[in-house]
């Protein structure tokens, strides 16, 4: 047991290291345990876990190209993970990142390909790119603010409402991408938009590698979210409403406004994930591209303990797994879907850290992580 005096005698950076170690211990052990259990599943399914994990690691971090692809995968994960994490800080569970991302991507793609045609001029890149990304984050923010407002004023629970908004977004984007916004190219049979104009594209960082400026932007935004949450009044209000809504009410915080703003900010980040994927990577929006990001984002936010730095690390890990999985499948014929199993196991062990603490005999030092509050919320 560490006493107060012990802590005082340590220097500042030792304390920081110690608290970082404590914060990362359980997630690390959760990852380790999930990888072991995943290996058992691979073996049961008739594969060789060593070969599989070796292929996975090679594919994820084995070369400059592998790193580049991992960062490409990590970019939307960081934005979407931050979206879910920010909502958690405000006591809200945003399962709708997927729909917000899809809507952001559609809006960005539209500004990217249709606006120059409508205006009849070529928009200079310095204007077009911010416009395109701005449209995406605005669309995401609006899409998330709706369930936020329903929660604040009508008591509709955001868990169900954000899920419903996902299905609504999926239906509407299906309609748009198969109808009015479909790429008119006669060779095209896929539900996708035309390519966006050159001026609306995020450039790549290194010639020949796909990693684009969206990745540094994501890191910058993570820093911004940290600053917002811990250094501004709004951030304080968000965290207060999240920690104790009754106390927030008595303290005179307009909790309805904070709920809506939190959801809008969360949707803004998710919309940015879509916007950056369109402007930096795909140069168009394609149906089905957005599917699965919502749940991945939740897992990332939880693994990162809803802290921006944790989210960045968790995103790079998940991105590495997704990226390396293709090489693993190529080398060992084990389906990439095993990654989803391992990721859900990680989430299981992070959420139920009691299992990990029991397995490795770690004493609980902090209070249990309470993120949501039933239907009454």
């Amino acid at each position, binding site marked *: 047991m560490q006493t107060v005096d012990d802590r005082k005698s340590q220097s500042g950076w030792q304390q920081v290291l110690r608290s970082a170690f404590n914060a990362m211990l359980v997630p690390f052990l959760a990852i380790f345990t999930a990888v072991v259990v995943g290996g058992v*599943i691979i073996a049961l*399914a008739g594969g060789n876990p060593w070969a599989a994990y070796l292929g996975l690691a090679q594919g994820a971090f084995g070369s400059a190209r592998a790193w580049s692809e991992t960062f490409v995968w990590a970019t939307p994960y960081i934005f979407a993970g931050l979206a879910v994490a920010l909502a958690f800080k405000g006591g809200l*569970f945003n*399962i709708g990142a997927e729909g917000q991302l899809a809507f952001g991507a559609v809006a960005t793609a539209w500004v990217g390909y249709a606006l120059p045609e409508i205006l009849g001029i070529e928009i200079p890149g310095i204007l077009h790119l911010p416009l395109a990304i701005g449209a995406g984050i605005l669309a995401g923010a609006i899409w998330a603010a709706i*369930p936020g407002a*329903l929660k604040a004023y*009508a*008591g*509709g*629970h955001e*868990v*169900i*409402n954000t*899920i*419903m*908004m*996902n*299905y*609504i977004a999926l*239906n*509407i984007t*299906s*309609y748009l991408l*198969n*109808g009015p916004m479909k790429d008119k190219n006669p060779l095209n049979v896929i539900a996708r938009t035309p390519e966006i104009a050159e001026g609306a594209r995020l450039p790549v960082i290194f010639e020949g590698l796909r990693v684009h400026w969206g990745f540094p932007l994501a890191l910058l935004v993570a820093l911004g979210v940290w600053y917002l949450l811990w250094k501004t009044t709004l951030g304080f209000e968000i965290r207060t409403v999240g920690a104790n809504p009754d106390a927030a009410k008595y303290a005179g915080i307009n909790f309805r406004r904070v709920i809506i703003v939190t959801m809008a900010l969360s949707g803004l980040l998710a919309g940015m994930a879509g916007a950056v994927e369109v402007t930096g990577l795909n140069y168009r929006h394609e149906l089905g591209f957005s*599917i699965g990001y919502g*749940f991945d984002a*939740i*897992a990332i936010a*939880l693994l990162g303990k809803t802290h921006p730095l944790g989210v960045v690390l968790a995103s790079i890990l998940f991105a590495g797994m997704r990226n390396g999985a293709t090489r693993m499948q190529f080398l060992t*014929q*084990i*389906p990439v*879907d*095993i*990654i*989803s*199993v*391992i*990721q*859900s*196991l990680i*989430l*299981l062990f992070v*959420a*139920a850290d*009691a*299992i990990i603490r029991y397995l490795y005999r770690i004493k609980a030092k902090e209070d*249990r*992580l*309470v*993120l*949501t*509050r*039933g*239907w*009454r919320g």
Partner: protein
Amino acid sequence: MDWRRFSFIGFIIVFLFTVVVLIGGSRVSPTIIISSMLTTTIAVATPLTLGALSGVFCERAGVVNIGIEGMMLAAAFFGWLAAIYMNTIFKFDPSISLWTGVLVAILTGGLFALLHAWLSITFKVDQIIGGTVINILAVGITGFLNRQMFFGEGSIFGGNVPHAPGLLPSLSKWLTPLCGGPQGCLGLPTLIQGTFLDQKPVAIAAIVLVFVAHYVLFNTRWGLRTRAVGEHPKAADTVGINVYRTRYINVVLGGMLAGLAGAYFTIESVPSFEPLMTNGRGFISLAAMIFGNWTPFGAWAAALVFGASQALQINLQFFRDAIPPNWAFLQHAYIVGLAPYVLTMLILTGIIGKTTPPAADGQPYEK
């Protein structure tokens, strides 16, 4: 369940039916349309009804279960897998294979629910997070096994996806001695015959289970204990009710209901499995449960509304050409397909009266 809510539900269902009759009435007689709408409504409401009942059992005992979607998906997969194995590997006849599939689906639901119970009751994990874990786990496992067993190189079925050995037969098949005659079943009106006797076993079971659930919850000692544990666990504990055990059993029972709902997808509705095929039904079930104010009959009524809005989509596709030009938006399946989701959100705003969850819903109990 108050009259306002029931009449609201009745109004929506009548409205949805009227739309279809107005559009298709020129092609087909209204009786046939109504009969077909009723049949579809009850059939597609089946997983929603069972899912909502699953939620009612869990939450009446005080455990929030948003993992119903995942339980359904996993049950749909493993039930289907069991039916295929029984039929193609062990060479049982199709009917035995199918019923084994139903049983395995129910057990799968129960097993996933046991995990949820373990997380939320024993480890006191945040219950919404626990449910999300179940959902993600189900997507991962079913996606992995589906690919590993059917599509991979050297996979067990070598790239051929076998179909389940048919589907469960409808009730009228079972009653052939009664229904074989020229008058149909005992000369019952076509409307009733089409609506109820053409339903399949899981759909019938769902309706029966609504009544059973109501009886169990409100007329038995077990039901009283369940509700006590969900409303005020400390008081229940004081009078000697084992809170943990009661919660465990109810959550597992609920999981088995969700498992039966899973069987509907791959054994009763279509003979094949698709990744993510439950498509949000589990979440809509939860909305039905909330709108039904945590009662079996209320949940059933709400499930029927969602069923009717889906029946509308299916029937409008059928009458696509008959849609008048100024209603052209109804031609787009994606637009009509929004109905159940928009309806869910509308209902949750509480415009049709407030709902009250069990008092201890979602809170872990600490002795």
